């Protein structure tokens, strides 16, 4: 008998090697439901992953389990990453889990990152679109749930810090499937009120609870708001898409109220400071002007006002002399011109201006009448010529010469083809008509 018997250990070791050589098994992603969950006192987690038909043992060592963001429970759907290998001692294979997320949640994270990137690429988070938050808002819109800590925190913070500010609450659903549409509607509604700023808030909760604030339509409504919006959603660590697109992000609803309004005492001391500076600036101004006034009062002119007058007197004399001289020069010049004109030849022989004009007139008359006579002569000749032509063409004249015109039925007969035997024809002669019956017709040759 040469049959070889292996030990169990050897077999399990060999099978383990087979598993470990499969690269796909070394880093595998699985989804399933947790059952038989045990949290060992030393910190390791033991559980079973299953779906409708199969199950798989799972272990998560403390070194990985300490990073979990949630407390696993039986029935919870999860997404795990790990290595499938063999537990030699038990002869079982199992998954050694390194990372585990709540199922659905994993998708939410992906959606969040995708939307964040999309909106960032579109520029919705850009600084240049952030509206300035007024420093002293007197009318504040609040969009949050009517019940709960958030609205209480916001209102009590505003009352404590800046009680002269009025608030209007636009109650909104802040979780659940209808929340996103309700928040969008309330942002639009709030924009129809004369508000200085809007606080968009919600208390803490799970990522699903806060999800409405990660919806694209909510982000776009915040972006489109004409009134600046301060977001305060969840706790310090929670960042939502709304926070990125809002004009100002506060870590919590209380924080949002603190950013929205100043402390009354700070404002009072600001005004006091401004008043002090105002008075100081005014004092400086008055002192400067007083100094100026004193300087002017001490000036030579003020002390010797007549000196101003003396100078003007001298100027006046000077100008008066120049004026007198200029007028005399003008009179002399004009007298000279008058003399020259009086002595000129034309002035003494004014008829010279008309002599050649009279000659031109007579000549023009002569030329006109001879042209008119020529035109009349031409017209007369034309008339006589046309009269002769007319005489030649007159048909009566032709008839007088012995020619006749033959008609039948009022139509002139030009050819034998238009008549036949026994037709009655009319012959026109110079002094009357002849009615005849056709006896014969002969064609020329």
């Amino acid at each position, binding site marked *: 008998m040469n049959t070889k018997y292996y030990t169990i250990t050897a077999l399990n070791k060999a099978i383990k090697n087979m598993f470990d050589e499969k690269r796909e098994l070394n880093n595998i992603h699985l989804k399933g439901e947790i059952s038989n969950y045990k949290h060992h006192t030393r910190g390791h987690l033991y559980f079973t992953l299953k779906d409708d038909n199969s199950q798989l043992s799972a272990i998560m060592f403390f070194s990985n389990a300490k990073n979990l963001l949630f407390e696993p429970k039986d029935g919870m759907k999860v997404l795990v990453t790990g290595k499938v290998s063999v537990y030699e001692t038990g002869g079982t294979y199992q998954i050694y889990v390194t990372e585990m997320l709540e199922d659905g949640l994993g998708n939410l994270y992906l959606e969040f990152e995708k939307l964040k990137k999309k909106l960032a690429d579109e520029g919705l988070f850009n600084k240049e679109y952030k509206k300035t938050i007024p420093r002293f808002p007197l009318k504040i819109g609040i969009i949050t749930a009517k019940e709960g800590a958030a609205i209480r925190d916001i209102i009590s913070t505003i009352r404590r810090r800046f009680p002269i500010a009025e608030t209007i609450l636009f109650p909104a659903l802040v979780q659940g499937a209808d929340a996103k549409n309700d928040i969008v509607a309330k942002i639009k509604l709030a924009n129809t009120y004369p508000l200085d700023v809007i606080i968009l808030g919600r208390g803490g909760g799970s990522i699903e609870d806060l999800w409405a604030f990660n919806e694209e339509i909510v982000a776009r409504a915040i972006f489109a708001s004409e009134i600046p919006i301060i977001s305060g959603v969840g706790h310090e660590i929670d960042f939502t898409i709304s926070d990125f697109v809002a004009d100002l992000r506060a870590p919590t609803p209380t924080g949002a109220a603190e950013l929205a309004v100043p402390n009354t005492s700070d404002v009072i001391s*600001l005004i006091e400071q401004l008043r002090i500076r105002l008075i100081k600036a005014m004092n400086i101004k008055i002192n400067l002007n007083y100094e100026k006034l004193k300087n002017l009062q001490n000036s030579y002119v003020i002390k010797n006002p007549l000196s101003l007058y003396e100078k003007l007197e001298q100027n006046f004399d000077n100008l008066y002399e120049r004026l007198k001289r200029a007028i005399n020069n003008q009179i002399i010049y004009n007298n000279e011109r008058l003399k020259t004109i009086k002595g000129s030849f034309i002035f003494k022989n004014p008829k010279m201006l008309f002599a050649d004009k009279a000659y031109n007139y007579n000549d023009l008359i002569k030329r006109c009448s001879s042209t008119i006579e020529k035109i009349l002569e031409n017209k007369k000749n034309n008339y006589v010529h046309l009269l002769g032509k007319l005489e030649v063409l007159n048909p009566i004249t032709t008839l007088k010469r012995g020619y006749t015109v033959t008609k039948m039925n009022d139509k002139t007969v030009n050819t034998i083809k238009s008549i036949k035997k026994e037709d009655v024809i009319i012959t026109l002669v110079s002094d009357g008509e002849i009615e005849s019956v056709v006896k014969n017709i002969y064609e020329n040759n």
Partner: protein
Amino acid sequence: MDKKKINFEENIKKLENIVHELESGNVALDEALEKFSEASKLSKECDDKLKEVSESVNKILNADGSLEEFKIEE
């Protein structure tokens, strides 16, 4: 003067502008005096508004569009 209609934001801004202008010293005396009295008025208005003793006004918008007082337990 209707105190509710004071634009706090604008008044403080105007006040600050006047203070800056006067501090710069580039204002003629007549104008400076005018601005000084305007600024004094503005600061008094803002101050009065802040010190006005009144209950803070908190309202809620009802579904029917009406506004009513909103009370919270503190």
